[in-house]
């Protein structure tokens, strides 16, 4: 049983980053323990893995690092037994990983087109991977404009703040950050030395202000159900057709390979047929997500 898709391989926690003031969002940068294992991992942003802790369990997470980054990155919110155990782990400790699973964002379709990224809350993880991937020097000429609308409840809940700061000064992308509430005392919210200030407003409202040539664009959307509900009408208003809009879904899952059943949306498994679906595909499926 050399190729058992259920077996995790060991990875060492290289770095733990606390992402928010509530300290319930942490990023883990992982390095494979076995030499040569990293080379076997061909993935594209959008795909996911299962992280594993022996004796505790495992859970699925989107890959937040780009294919060319040396370490695998995951950002995890502490909600249940597994994520609580993971949050208690420290740099140097070893956990397990298996994957990569599922579909990626449509990079072929995105070639030479403008890319609009719309994200809310901590769903930003796999979209960070998209941004890092596109911003890579060799890759950047293959894409048109890169426009990002990213919001959270408060500026402090935005992930990857150091990178956001750097990106907001970069001419390679257009960053629109927003938060439901912006407190004036929040340094990050104000913007500093040419940084993008965090606007007060909801993602769909900020999106309305984005100018993009829709005929030549692809939209990648990821966020909580409430954000999605109010974002679709805006995208439609902007002129996006359902086949130009891609979403990453998450249903409860246990296996990652279309066997354990539960993640189905009608006859499609999110783990195997997704997690990235075009909105056009989703319109043909029942609303079971």
């Amino acid at each position, binding site marked *: 049983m050399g190729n058992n898709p259920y077996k995790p391989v060991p990875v060492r926690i290289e770095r733990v980053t606390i992402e928010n003031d509530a300290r319930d969002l942490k990023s883990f940068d992982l390095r494979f323990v076995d030499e040569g294992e990293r080379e076997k991992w061909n993935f594209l942003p959008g795909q996911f893995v299962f992280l594993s802790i022996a004796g505790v369990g495992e859970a699925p997470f989107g890959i937040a690092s780009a294919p060319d980054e040396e370490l695998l990155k995951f950002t995890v919110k502490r909600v249940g037994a597994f994520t609580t155990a993971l949050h208690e782990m420290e740099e140097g400790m070893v956990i397990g990983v298996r994957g990569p699973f599922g579909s990626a964002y449509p990079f072929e379709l995105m070639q030479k087109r403008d890319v609009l990224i719309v994200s809310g809350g901590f769903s930003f993880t796999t979209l960070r991977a998209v941004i890092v991937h596109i911003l890579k020097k060799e890759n950047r000429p293959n894409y048109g404009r890169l426009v990002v609308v990213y919001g959270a409840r408060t500026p402090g809940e935005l992930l990857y703040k150091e990178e956001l700061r750097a990106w907001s000064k970069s001419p390679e992308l257009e960053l629109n950050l927003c938060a439901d509430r912006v407190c004036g005392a929040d340094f990050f919210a104000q913007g500093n030395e040419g940084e993008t200030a965090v606007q007060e407003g909801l993602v769909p409202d900020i999106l309305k202000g984005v100018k993009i040539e829709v005929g030549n664009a692809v939209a990648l959307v990821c966020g909580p159900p409430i954000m999605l509900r109010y974002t679709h009408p805006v995208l439609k208003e902007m002129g996006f057709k359902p086949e130009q809009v891609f979403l990453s879904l998450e249903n409860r899952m246990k296996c990652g390979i279309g066997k354990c059943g*539960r993640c189905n949306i009608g006859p499609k498994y999110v783990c195997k047929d997704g997690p990235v679906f075009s909105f056009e595909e989703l319109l043909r499926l029942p609303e079971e997500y």
Partner: protein
Amino acid sequence: MKVFLKHDDLKKLLEGIAREGRLFAPVKKDWYSGWARVSSMGEIVLRGEQAQLKGEEVNSREPAKVFVFPQSEVMFEFDEERAVEATEVPAVVVFGLRSCDGRAMAFLERFFVENRPEDPLVRQRREKATLIGVACNSPADSCFCTAVGGGPHERKGLDVLLREVNGGFLGEAETEKGEKLLAGFPAANEKDEAEAEKRRQEAEGKMALRIDLKRLKEVLDKGFNSPVWERLALECVNCGACTFLCPTCHCFDVTDETVRGKKKRSRVWDSCQFTLYSQHASGHNPRLNPAARYRNRVMDKFKYTVDMVGELSCVGCGRCVRVCPAGIDIRVAVAEILREEEAGKDGQ
């Protein structure tokens, strides 16, 4: 080739296997019938010819899927964070499956193994099992294999099918493994074959239900939002018994345990009838409504697996009909679904 096994020959064959400790067959377990290792023929509960049989006298309550997909199995153990093989799967010979369970085995093989990526656990167990089916000559009232494309004398999914006739069994191999098992037995004669055929026809004649499967699929393709689901699910208590005893239900949960410092990862049957089955970590649940869960089961049997792997996943074994504490009958449900669609047409 068809061979003939006298009752005594079969007994000797099975006793030989039993002596090696490899024979499994349906036995009486407390208040129900299930599968167990047997050492003598007397333990086997398998009736063929009596009239007026109840479901459990025809087929085990526990589905034969336990041999490729046990209710609970250790997937592997851990050495630190590294997964290491659990103990090897033993070779078994399973005697006394009915054709419906054989078909279910074929479905599970299609779903778990041929449908990539393969599940190595199911593949290994199927490779290590030799399945000796016994044809049904007296199906129960709750049986309906012929309505879903099967038959009481079907060989699909089995290694060997035995069909009882006067004085013994007509044996037919479906696989190489089966041929090996039957090698050395004399060829059957025409009279025995004719008798087996007659019994097959009689058995099939006892199952009157017909389902227009093509139309059912078409109706289900459009029927996700039909009002019929709320009505059908009214009596359902979402106990999950139908899914646990269904020979094709394949859903599982994955769970870790630590026993005396040894860490293990296991999988265990799960059911789409349970709330937690589909509940997200956030608390959001795509199938919060019991009717949505009931719909998922019926859709899965007659539509979803057809879309996914090209095969129905109802084999007509009738177990869900027999065990449902609310008396829900999937045959009635299917009739209702088709009737609802007719009524809908009239209304237009």
